[in-house]
């Protein structure tokens, strides 16, 4: 039966080439845009180099102190002291990666300016995150404690500072008038993973800011890693219990708010959420609404085209009805036909998105970002295809099935 529908569908598509072209154009371009957007979102939010352990990590981006009576507050990254002293007391985290957000500094090679984004980290940072070392190795805890002036740099920095052929380990790199000995070179990290992005990684002990200050506010963010994925919930509970007891560091502020969240939630909380909710639900609602609105116009268009197509075949429908085909069989057939059409459009869409992503990647619009179509993106697109096909097929099919045999035959 399905094979028959398939044959009919192909025959119909061949008969009215212009309509087929319009439908395929609409479907494939809608899906191309959806897939490129999905690929981008997937790249930002899914785990990938060097952040592979997102199923068992929690992120602490910022800490907030509030005066609950007057309403004013202070918010920003936490201090090293906070991670060292308060987070250090927790039992469930196996390791805690502490680092500053990347901040730019300048250095000059042959009078050419090089912007180097510095990131100060602790030693466990290298264990929580799996950077690929092209050369050398990360700094160890002892080196951090001694305050050794050592640096891990990205391949990009190495290429522009030392040249692409020469090895860099053991050489010295100068920035802000301080010389650091290069002990490792890692693969570039795309800037979209800004929690772990940097051009040069240094031990926090060589940072010029005072990391010993016993305040809560500072310039550090943290990634807490549990022993296993099952422990994450326990770790989150322990963290919130600790956060509730936390004293403020200034008299006029009376409440501390700090959360350890999963990767996505740690961002949605800042945009949509508040202390009580992560804002994930809001985020998904917003994304869903936007997608629906975006698909509305192509869907309406396709519905219009489909109605014209179906009405054109009214004599065929009349004959089938006259010979006893039920309405549901006809509806079923047309929906299947439409889904075949959308899947054809979907395949074209995949090809187009592949081309678009290749162009995007080679244009280097965002440094080191390489978007790709992976299985997950393909799956989402397939779902989008089918939803699209159903949406645009159901109404015309319903209209058609209500056609009277006599009128249908007459036309």
């Amino acid at each position, binding site marked *: 039966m399905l094979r028959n529908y398939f044959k009919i569908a192909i025959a119909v598509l061949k008969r009215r080439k*212009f*309509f087929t*072209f*319009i439908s395929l*154009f*609409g479907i494939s*371009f*809608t899906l191309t*845009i959806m897939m490129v957007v999905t690929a981008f979102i997937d790249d930002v939010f899914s785990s990938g180099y060097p952040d592979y352990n997102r199923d068992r990590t929690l992120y602490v981006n910022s800490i907030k102190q509030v005066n609950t009576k007057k309403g004013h507050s202070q918010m920003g990254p936490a201090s090293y002291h906070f991670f060292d002293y308060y987070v250090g007391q927790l039992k469930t985290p196996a390791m805690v990666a502490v680092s500053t957000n990347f*901040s*730019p*500094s*300048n250095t*000059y090679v042959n*009078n*050419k*300016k090089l*912007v180097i984004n*510095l990131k100060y980290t602790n030693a466990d940072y290298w264990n929580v995150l799996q950077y690929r070392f092209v050369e050398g190795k990360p700094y160890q805890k002892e080196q951090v404690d001694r305050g050794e002036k050592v640096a891990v740099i990205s391949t990009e920095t190495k290429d522009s500072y030392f040249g692409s052929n020469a090895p860099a380990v053991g050489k010295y790199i100068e920035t*802000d*008038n301080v010389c650091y000995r290069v002990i490792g070179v890692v693969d570039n990290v795309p800037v979209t993973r800004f929690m772990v992005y940097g051009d040069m990684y240094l031990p926090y002990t060589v*940072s*010029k*800011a005072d990391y010993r200050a016993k305040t809560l506010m500072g310039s550090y963010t943290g990634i807490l890693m549990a022993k296993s994925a099952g422990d994450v919930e326990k770790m989150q509970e322990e963290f919130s219990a600790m956060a509730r007891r936390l004293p403020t560091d200034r008299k006029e502020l009376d409440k501390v708010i700090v959360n350890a969240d999963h990767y996505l939630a740690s961002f949605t909380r800042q945009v949509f959420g508040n202390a009580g909710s992560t804002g994930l639900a809001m985020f998904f609602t917003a994304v869903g609404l936007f997608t629906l609105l*975006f698909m*509305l*116009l*192509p869907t*309406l*268009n*396709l*519905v*219009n*085209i489909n*109605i*014209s197509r179906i*009405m*054109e075949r009214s004599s065929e429908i009349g004959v089938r009805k006259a010979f006893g085909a039920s309405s549901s069989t006809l509806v079923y057939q047309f929906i299947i036909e439409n889904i075949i059409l959308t899947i054809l459009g979907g395949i074209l869409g995949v090809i187009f998105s592949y081309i678009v992503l290749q162009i995007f990647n080679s244009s280097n619009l965002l440094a080191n970002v390489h978007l790709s179509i992976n299985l997950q993106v393909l799956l989402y697109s397939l779902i989008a295809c089918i939803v699209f096909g159903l949406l645009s097929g159901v109404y015309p099919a319903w*209209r058609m099935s209500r056609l009277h045999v006599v009128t249908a035959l007459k036309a």
Partner: protein
Amino acid sequence: MLSHLFKLIWNKKKQNFLLLMEMFVSFLVMFAVFTLLVYYYKNFKVPHGFQYENVWAVNYNDAVKPDRLDSVALYMQTVRQTLLGVDGVQDITFTSANIPFSFTQNNNFVSYNKNKVLANVYEAEDNYASLFNLSVISGRWFDKTDIAGQTNTIVINNRLKESLFGNDEAIGKTILAGDEKLRVIGVSNDMKIDGDYQPTENGFFRKLDTAGLKYNSTILVKIRPGIDASFEPKLFKVLNNVIRNANIEIEHFTKKRERKNTLSLVPMILLSVVGGFLIINVALGLFGVLWYNINKRRCEIGLRRAVGASGSAISWQLIGEALVLSTLAIILGSFFAVQFPLLNVFDLPAGVYLTAIALAIAFIYGLVMICALYPGKQAAAIYPAVALHEE
């Protein structure tokens, strides 16, 4: 004639309803695209109001400064003198971090009588205006007689003057920022600080005081034109030696402006690409449906031709039908679009919305005309004998 066209559309209301919806949604999409384009264009036409070409910004963090305020003043004086001594440096000034094209903001509510608005607060020194070639429209800029913390004098920009005082004189008046009383001594030109495509904002300048110097982290350096590439590393070395223990970054205002513009342009380009694609889609769809409808009405058209209608009368009837349908969609769409200026959504000037509505109407009419033209022409070419024979 019009009522006849309405009747034709009404008779096929079911079929036309979806077409109407499609035009309606297209209208809304075009309204959104045009609103953004008109808004950006309007902002683009406004002059920058200051000269940034030879100005560099130096950001320094974590500098170790003396604890006592009078020693801070002395320390910063040394920094100033050292930098002014560098060959190639024309002028320098210390300022707050919310410099033009930056991502930092510092604002406060200010009020005069019953008018209360949010305004950017900039901390500036006596030579800030001359460094940026910022012109003072009335009154004067800061000089030695203004002492931060004592005289509480401020210079407001033209936009803030208009939102607080309207056409009245502003010089000499006192405005409130929180509990603080500030006396206006000058009105400066507006600075378009957020890049080419963003609007000017309310703002006022306060004199940078010694406490401000302690937490200062931004220096503006005006350099002499025509210096070569080796100048920047030289300046950087000097900075590193004079400001001990700091992370230092030099930025060029021309580059900062580009970056800020890119950030404004990306949503515009994305929206235009998506809007353009949707419109091509709709155009093809409309074209297909109109074409199909005309093919279905061959015998009707043949009959009209047989009783004497000319070819152009036929094609005008079909185009007219499409235009009446799009008028309905536009009326419906305009009803929703007009709510934006009425309810003041997104805080854009009403003129922007109205221009966008006008452009969207013209666009939809144009689009429908183009889509109906070819099918209409085809219909005009139908021979009555052939059409009637088929029946």
